[in-house]
């Protein structure tokens, strides 16, 4: 029944829609024939042809109205109206190209910026992690040791798999120069926890993941493709890693991803590094807990708390104060960046708001010029709903055009964002314009068109029409309410722009402060690189020390070069801490001794780096293996542990050293910004490679100061290093200047974006205020003419206009300052060295904005000054 109905009606409706002119013509013809027949009918009844025709027409009771009813009966009139409105909009917009272009461009800026930032937010915050059922994945804030994980696994029931992984560099001697690969040393459970199958082969089993198990390796897809050209016959081949052979048993799928440092190969921690794996005190595993389905979180948390207490009481030396609490993996990965991304998103939302206000303002100005057209249409019987719909159609049409243009801008914007290298944002590399971004853009465009088209449309139809026809076209000022609305727009634009400008200003101020921070060492002409000695050939310390000695001698013999070694370079992100005790002071209980940063050096490290010696002496040639063990401490160490006592001469040792190994403090050096320019230095103890008992410290950074260009320094170093051992890869080659700049990448990213948004906001606000003032002046031409005729000077006219602009700007400024005071505290985590209510920014920026606003008023005001009273009044 329904179907049969559609069989008839659908072709008819399609015909009404797409063959409109045919249908119209048929209707015309049908009614015309009827009128002729009716006329003949009346003539036959004795009327004159003229009377007959009139009677026939009268019977129809309004021919056009009946036609409209017939069209209504065809029930596609709504859609037809839309098409008609669209056609009409396009026609009228073509006649106002500058209006259309300005509107589309304004919206494109606002929407494009939003789409670009949204695509970042989408990639980083919204898209789910690339693991099956990723909401079941948890982690701990603190790293764990493998024995800890084993205990947690044994004493809980909520988890189906508990994975642990540490990333370590292994030397890969394949073909050509030796290189380092980043190896994930993990347990077999890791694969189950993350929920990945292999693309090729298999992963190692729990049986194989055992002390003395077979040497197996699983490759990531990138490594397999990059090094082996995706060789399908890779399985069973062997890889030489740091002097040992590993058999390839599997390749992971392309989707495999781990937060943090990228991993190229995976192997069993128990097989590769049994010593570290067994050691409960080595908390170096990132953990991945997969919760069993249907387990309440509270139960898992309770279990975890029990294990935590058990571990603490069982192993107070190793496992105290780890605060093991389950943390959703997602929060662990994006938790830190969420607030700052939200600040950016809010900022770009404000830009859109300004763009929308400008858009509404533009439409209002335009509708003012169309008042008479609209009034006439209303008078001819167009229902106001129909008029509003027409204006809305135009507005939505423009906003969708703006959305399309915005998407193009967003595409460019995303590429720009990528070049800004927002290094700290996890998964930023996945940013793309995808379905979500398209949907978001469409929704924003539509909403913009409807909401910001409705205000002017309502204003025009409800508040305008009645009075319009009476008014003379020239003096109709778009309605007093329209003008009031535009003033309101300007005030809010200035207020919003000010919020953005102050935010950007705060960021710029804190960035310059960060930039000026003294890192505590001289960055210029300083080249650094990392070398790691493979365990297979350098297990014994005498071999390591011989290498250190030979390398430094060889490098320092290059004219103009000073070289030294250090275990942790500033801003490398690396650090090692040790618990320590001071001789002669009461020993705290085991496990709760104070912790300090530990850096092991060799050669004249402080001199090479340009770190200031504050007291005592530097390490020297007299400090050798076998001589008195010495240490140098930093100023933060002195401030915390020797505030009233001279540290030089005091003795310290690593807690629980066995055998006892006291180091005499011989000097104090200045603090350096080890963790980045914005981070405070922590107490640190420097010791010597030639004296430390830690034979596992087989890695080192070479710090080279030399006038030669970095490229030449590097090739000289390679040559000399490989003359000593040609199997050692050199990695992480950076100039210290680059390292310092990179440490500010994150701030630079946020700053650049906020600055761009603020600039766009300022430009839009200026355009807004300029538009309103120009318009106000054309409206007041008469009045100004009269004033000039009555003797007003140029200056008076100028002040009249500027005063009007100033009032708006002051009001907007005051609102903007109030809003900023309320809002900037949400960005305090992005700031360094200034308060979010930094008085300088809150005074200087509003003044600057006021000045710019005045300039935007001055241009139209000058035009007003030149109003010729004769011309102005002649129009009357």
């Amino acid at each position, binding site marked *: 029944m329904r179907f049969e109905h559609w069989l008839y009606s659908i072709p008819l409706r399609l015909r009404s829609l797409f063959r409109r002119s045919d249908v119209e013509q048929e209707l015309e*013809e*049908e009614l015309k024939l009827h009128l002729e027949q009716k006329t003949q009918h009346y003539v036959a009844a004795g009327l004159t042809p003229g009377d007959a025709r009139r009677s026939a027409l009268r019977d129809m*009771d309004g021919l056009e109205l009946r036609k409209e009813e017939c069209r209504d009966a065809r029930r596609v009139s709504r859609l037809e109206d839309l098409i008609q409105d669209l056609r009409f909009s396009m026609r009228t917009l073509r006649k106002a190209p500058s209006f259309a272009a300005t509107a589309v461009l304004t919206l494109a800026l606002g929407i494009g910026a939003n789409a670009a930032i949204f695509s970042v937010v989408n990639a980083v915050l919204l898209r789910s992690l690339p693991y099956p059922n990723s909401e079941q994945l948890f982690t701990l804030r603190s790293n764990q040791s493998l024995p800890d994980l084993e205990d947690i696994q044994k004493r809980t029931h909520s988890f189906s798999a508990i994975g642990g992984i540490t990333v370590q560099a292994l030397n890969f001697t394949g073909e050509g120069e030796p290189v380092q690969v980043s190896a994930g040393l993990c347990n077999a459970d890791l694969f189950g926890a993350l929920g990945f199958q292999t693309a090729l082969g298999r992963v190692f089993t729990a049986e194989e993941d055992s002390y003395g198990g077979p040497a197996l390796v699983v490759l990531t897809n990138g490594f397999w493709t990059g090094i082996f050209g995706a060789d399908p016959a890779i399985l069973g081949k062997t890889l030489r890693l740091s002097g040992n052979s590993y058999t390839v048993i599997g390749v992971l799928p392309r989707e495999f991803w781990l937060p943090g440092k990228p991993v190229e190969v995976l192997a069993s921690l128990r097989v590769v590094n049994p010593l570290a794996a067994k050691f409960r005190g080595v908390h170096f595993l990132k953990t991945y807990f997969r919760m069993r389905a249907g387990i309440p979180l509270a139960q898992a948390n309770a279990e975890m708390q029990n294990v935590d207490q058990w571990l603490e009481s069982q192993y107070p030396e190793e496992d105290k104060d780890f605060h093991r609490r389950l943390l959703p993996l997602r929060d662990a990965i994006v938790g830190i960046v969420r607030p700052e991304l939200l600040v950016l998103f809010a900022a770009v939302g404000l830009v859109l708001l300004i763009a929308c206000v400008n858009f509404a303002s533009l439409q209002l100005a335009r509708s003012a010029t169309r008042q008479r057209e609209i009034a006439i249409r209303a008078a001819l019987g167009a229902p106001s709903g129909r008029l509003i719909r027409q204006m809305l159609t135009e507005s939505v049409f423009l906003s969708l055009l703006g959305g399309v243009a915005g998407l193009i801008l967003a595409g460019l914007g995303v590429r720009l964002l990528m070049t800004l290298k927002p290094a700290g944002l996890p998964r930023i590399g996945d940013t793309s314009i995808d379905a979500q971004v398209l949907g978001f853009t469409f929704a924003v465009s539509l909403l913009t068109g409807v909401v910001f088209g409705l205000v002017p449309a309502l204003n025009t139809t409800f508040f305008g029409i009645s009075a319009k026809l009476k008014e003379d076209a020239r003096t109709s000022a778009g309605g007093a309410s329209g003008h009031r609305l535009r003033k309101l727009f300007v005030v809010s634009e200035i207020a919003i722009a000010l919020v953005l400008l102050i935010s950007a200003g705060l960021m710029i101020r804190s960035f310059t402060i960060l930039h000026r921070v003294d890192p505590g060492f001289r960055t210029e002409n300083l080249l650094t690189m990392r070398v790691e000695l493979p365990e297979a050939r350098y297990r014994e310390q005498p071999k390591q020390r011989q290498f250190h000695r030979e390398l430094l001698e060889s490098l320092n013999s290059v004219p103009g070069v000073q070289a030294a070694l250090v275990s942790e370079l500033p801003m490398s992100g690396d650090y090692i801490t040790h618990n320590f005790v001071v001789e002669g002071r009461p020993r705290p209980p085991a496990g709760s001794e104070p912790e300090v940063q530990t850096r092991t050096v060799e050669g004249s490290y402080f001199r090479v780096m340009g770190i200031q010696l504050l007291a005592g002496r530097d390490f020297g040639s007299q400090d050798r293996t076998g001589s008195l063990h010495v240490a140098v401490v930093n100023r933060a160490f002195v401030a915390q542990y020797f505030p009233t006592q001279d540290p030089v001469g005091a003795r310290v040792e690593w807690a629980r050293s066995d055998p006892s190994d006291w180091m005499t403090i011989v000097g104090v050096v200045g603090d350096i910004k080890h963790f980045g320019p914005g981070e405070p230095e922590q107490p640190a103890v420097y010791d010597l490679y030639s004296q430390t008992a830690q034979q596992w410290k087989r890695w080192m950074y070479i710090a080279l100061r030399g006038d030669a260009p970095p490229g030449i320094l590097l090739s000289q170093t390679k040559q000399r290093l490989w003359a000593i051992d040609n199997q050692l890869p050199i990695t992480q080659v950076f100039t210290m200047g680059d390292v310092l700049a990179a440490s500010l990448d994150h701030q630079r990213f946020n700053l650049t974006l906020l600055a761009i948004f603020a600039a766009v906001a300022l430009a839009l606000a200026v355009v807004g205020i300029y538009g309103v003032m120009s318009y106000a002046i054309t409206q007041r031409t008469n009045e100004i003419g009269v004033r000039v005729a009555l003797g007003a000077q140029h200056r008076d006219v100028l002040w009249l206009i500027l005063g009007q602009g100033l009032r708006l700007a002051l009001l907007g400024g005051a609102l903007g300052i109030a809003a900023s005071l309320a809002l900037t505290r949400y960005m305090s985590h992005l700031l360094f060295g200034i308060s979010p209510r930094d008085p300088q920014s809150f005074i200087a920026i509003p003044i600057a904005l006021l000045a710019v606003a005045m300039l935007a008023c001055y241009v139209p005001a000058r035009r007003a000054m030149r109003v010729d009273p004769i011309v102005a009044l002649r129009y009357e």
Partner: protein
Amino acid sequence: MSKPSDLVQGTLDLLLLKILTLEPLNGFATSIRLKQVSGDVLQVSDGSLYPALHKLEQEGWIKAEWRPSENNRRAKFYSLTRLGRRHLEREADNWNRLSAAISQVVKMEA
């Protein structure tokens, strides 16, 4: 020309469908035929005729085709569809029941 009696809501559809059961007619002929058949009692105004016909066509109860009329002018002829015939039967039943009930009430002796 007397004003036509107000038709009960929905009865115009019924009348038009009924008129068109005999043979395809154009709009004017339909109104004339209605007047004749009802003995000059019922008349549909020209103003409501065409919107009503277009609505019926849209519902799929009647279909329209262009063909030459008596005086060889092209005219739009409406004819009943299968769907319309079924609708008419149902509506006619309804009407019969309703009118019988109304007459019964009206004839009731006080």
